[in-house]
């Protein structure tokens, strides 16, 4: 007979640190190779300021790039699915990051790496 665990009212608090050493840095390397302008981002946030998707969801390309750089790739697929590929960010970026291709390459790399059924962007 299985004993039901007694609830003493305590929970384990999960570690919220970025575990840089344990994180997946492969995706970032693949994306940087496919779209080298990834490395030019200075996190100024102009992309996110002009972003229509960011006005209605919590999407921010600046944050996506940081998550990628830190290897925080869990949940990244969901993040970039909010992008509509309108390209306004590309018009305003002061470092000429090729933002649209960047999103496409992240999507591709996530798909190839994790064999996820993303159906995010129509990449032909």
């Amino acid at each position, binding site marked *: 007979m299985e004993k039901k665990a007694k609830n003493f009212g305590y929970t384990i608090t999960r570690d919220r640190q970025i575990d840089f050493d344990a994180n997946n840095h492969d995706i970032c390397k693949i994306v940087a190779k496919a779209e080298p302008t990834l490395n030019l981002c200075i996190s100024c*946030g102009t992309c996110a300021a002009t972003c229509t998707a*960011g006005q209605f969801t919590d999407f*921010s390309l600046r*944050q996506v790039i940081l998550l990628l750089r830190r290897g925080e790739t869990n949940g990244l697929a969901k993040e970039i699915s909010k992008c509509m590929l309108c390209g306004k960010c590309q018009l*305003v970026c002061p*470092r000429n990051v090729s933002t649209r291709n960047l999103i496409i390459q992240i999507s591709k790399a996530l798909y190839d790496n994790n064999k996820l059924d993303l159906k995010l962007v129509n990449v032909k």
Partner: protein
Amino acid sequence: MVKHVVVIGGGPAGLETSASLSKLGFHVTLVEKEEVTGGHLNKWHALFPTLLSGKDALETITKGLNGNIKIQTATKVTSLEAVNDYFTISGHNGWQEKADAVVLTTGFQLFDSHRKEEYGYGIYENVITSADLEELFASEKELVTRHGNKPERVGFVHCVGSRDEKVNNLHCSKVCCITAVKQAIEVKQMLPDAEVFCFYMDLRMFGRHYEELYKEAQEKYNIQFIRGRLSESTEDKDGNIVVKVEDTLLGKPLRIKVGLLVLMAGMEPAADTKSLANMLGLKNVSDGFIQPLDEILRSNCTEIPGVFVAGTCSGPKSVSDTVADARSAALAVADFLKV
């Protein structure tokens, strides 16, 4: 025989170089394209970090000029040639002189903020530049919006025309961060009830007492610093400017209305800096400023013996940097001519 040096450009760099060269015993001709010397300093109300008035600074620098200096104003240099061991320099009005050495002090031009169309300069009346604000300070007029009201909020946009490859300027203009802090404080002194915001990417407080001025802006004047670069600004029906920016430290897009928006226009090499560099066949560098022989140890020398640089023609500088650079250039000239 006393050696002769021609200094091209009569802003603070040219004035200080001329004064120093004269003190070292050379004959100097200072050529200036405008009717008066002084350059941008003529229009600048006060200098960071001490708020020394531009007028006083210019007066002090000009006091150093003496009888060995000929000032050739209203003369635009149209040709500059190296002939054997001297240079021939001519102006558009027929002026011509020979020189044993030439110092380029042609300086910078302010970035034309119309080029950042999305920020609305020249489109919305309440978008002005840092230079416009200095002129307003100097005029001692009241600080009002173009509709005649006291602005309840004033915004400062850092890095306009600097660190922006969309306008082909990758470089940092260096002085705008501290200028924004200075101007923000001056605005608060004029309008104690106004809220003042600075929109920045990085705050580069590199000089002595700059960080202190930044702290004073926070502590004494409650100036708000929002880390995010503007994507665009628009005008509402009342003539307020609506700014769009990401508050990057919060990770949320932010919209804010200001009565007056000040664009911190950066430095670009002056058109004459570029044309003179071309005349001499000096190496063209991507940022357009003149490349010294060695940026660290020979910053006043160029690859052409006898041609020297001082001030902002070789990159953005503050007035204090410029004055020190000018004196250093005079010593480099002396070193060259006394060999």
